[in-house]
């Protein structure tokens, strides 16, 4: 950790995982994973397929309960954090049904559901939040388009807008740069910087190591457990990467990996 940053108190931690073990149908998907992520950082989550990236995401969202250890988000239990809409998940482009009959506006409004009443009737503040979120991702003119009529990059921005409308302090992004054009990539990178300034923390699961180097100030390396985490410059060493990818020669790993396979 850099000495220039303020010391980490528990109140400054967005994500705190301590010796977390997760069983998945009898197999250990994650063991003794410990992680501390402070407010306002962009963190890459790097590991092979099946290394436990999806498992970690699911544990952070409260879908999987650790069999050992604990997870705190903003100092709260995962369930409490869920109730406060603290965690937003931004799916992969192919993670949702694109032919679903909803408009861009409808999708972003879904980010507000958690703070609405039982009937999910949108109020003025909800509409204002959605409007503002769409402005930030530059999709306001396309708000009435069906979600299926968007390009892959635009769709990704719509789901980012949903996370903004939700006002989440922790964003979990699954392969955000897959199938995204240069303009969207630039816009997303700018947004990530703004999020960091707003003290939100972003966890980006990705195969693409060059993106980690370009966008992430933190990195977490996982292979069934957290191998290393911290400043990208310190952690992103050939030795650590070799460990992460099961002993492959580091020079192969410094470029973008061609693998686009999704984790199960």
């Amino acid at each position: 950790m850099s000495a220039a940053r303020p010391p980490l108190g528990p109140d400054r931690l967005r994500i705190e995982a301590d010796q977390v073990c997760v069983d998945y149908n009898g197999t250990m998907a994650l063991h003794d994973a410990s992680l501390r992520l402070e407010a306002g950082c962009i963190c890459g989550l790097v590991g092979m397929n099946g290394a436990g990236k999806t498992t970690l995401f699911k544990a952070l969202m409260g879908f999987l309960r650790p069999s050992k250890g604990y997870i705190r988000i903003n100092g709260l239990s995962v369930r409490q954090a869920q109730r406060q809409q603290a965690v937003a998940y931004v799916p992969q482009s192919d993670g949702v049904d694109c032919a679903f009959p909803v408009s861009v506006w409808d999708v972003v409004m879904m980010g507000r559901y958690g703070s609405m009443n039982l009937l999910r009737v949108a109020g003025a503040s909800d509409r204002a939040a959605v409007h503002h979120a769409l402005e930030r991702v530059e999709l306001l003119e396309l708000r009435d388009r069906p979600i299926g009529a968007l390009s892959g990059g635009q769709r990704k921005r719509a789901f980012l807008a949903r996370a903004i409308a939700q006002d989440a302090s922790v964003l979990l992004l699954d392969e955000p740069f897959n199938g995204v054009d240069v303009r969207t990539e630039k816009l997303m990178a700018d947004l990530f910087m703004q999020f960091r300034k707003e003290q939100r923390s972003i966890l980006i699961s990705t195969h693409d190591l060059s993106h980690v180097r370009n966008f992430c100030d933190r990195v977490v390396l996982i292979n069934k457990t957290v191998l290393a985490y911290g400043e990208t410059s310190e952690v992103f060493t050939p030795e650590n990467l070799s460990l992460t990818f099961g002993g492959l020669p580091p020079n192969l790993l410094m470029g973008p990996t061609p693998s686009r396979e999704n984790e199960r």
Partner: protein
Amino acid sequence: MTLLLAASTPLTWLLEPISHGFMLRALLVSALVGGVCGLLSCYMTLKGWALMGDAVSHAVMPGVVVAYALGLPFAVGAFVFGVGSVAVIGFVKQKSRVKEDTVIGLVFTGFFALGLVLISKIRSNIDLTHILFGNVLGISDSDITDTLVICAIVLAVLLVLRRDLMLFCFDPTHARSIGINTGLLHYLLLSVLSLAAVAGLQTVGIILVVAMLITPGATAYLLTDRFDRMTLLAVASSVFSSAGGVYVSYWTDSSTAGCIVLVQTFLFLLAFFFAPRHGIFRQHQS
């Protein structure tokens, strides 16, 4: 029939059938059940639960028989067996290597066969053909009451939770991550499906009830890209089909269930060919 048609005006075509009490009742019950099933069909088609709808509607049969034998409202038996069949499907799928569609087919035919055997063994006044093909023209007062209660329950659940259920169909991961109980929604939707299957059983019977649960949704899906409009269109097309089917069956003296589903299929074909954006003729033009 030709004589009748020739001798009458369009107004009498509409009014003559409902001058009979049993026709008016059949028309109103069919329209109500059609509307409720039409609304539910949006969720079934968007969630990809067409096969599940078929399974549940067949699996309720032994429940209906047992309920009749015990003197309970048939909805209770249907509900237990409908939800039970889904639980069995989930259990067998999880514990074996057999693929899901196989398990669904296997379980619902098993339940259906059990229903057939029960009907033949339990002494009752249940008419098998009424269960299989519906008997809306001869529907009894107590059946109407049960159907009204079922429709009210289904409608209440679907209206109160319509946003949550939409989100559950579209993006269950997001729904869960903001604290919505998706497991509850899953079973609620299945329960509502079981209930709607019993209501649909009154009008078109077990064999065709799956049409009530998917066709209006599929038709509406081709006509719009907005969810709210889709629900309205599905309900409208379903009510129209049910009412229209009852009329057609009266004037052609043919199966009511068959006519209702045929009108639904006809509307789907219209949408399939001529829908403004998603019809095949439009796609070829652009």
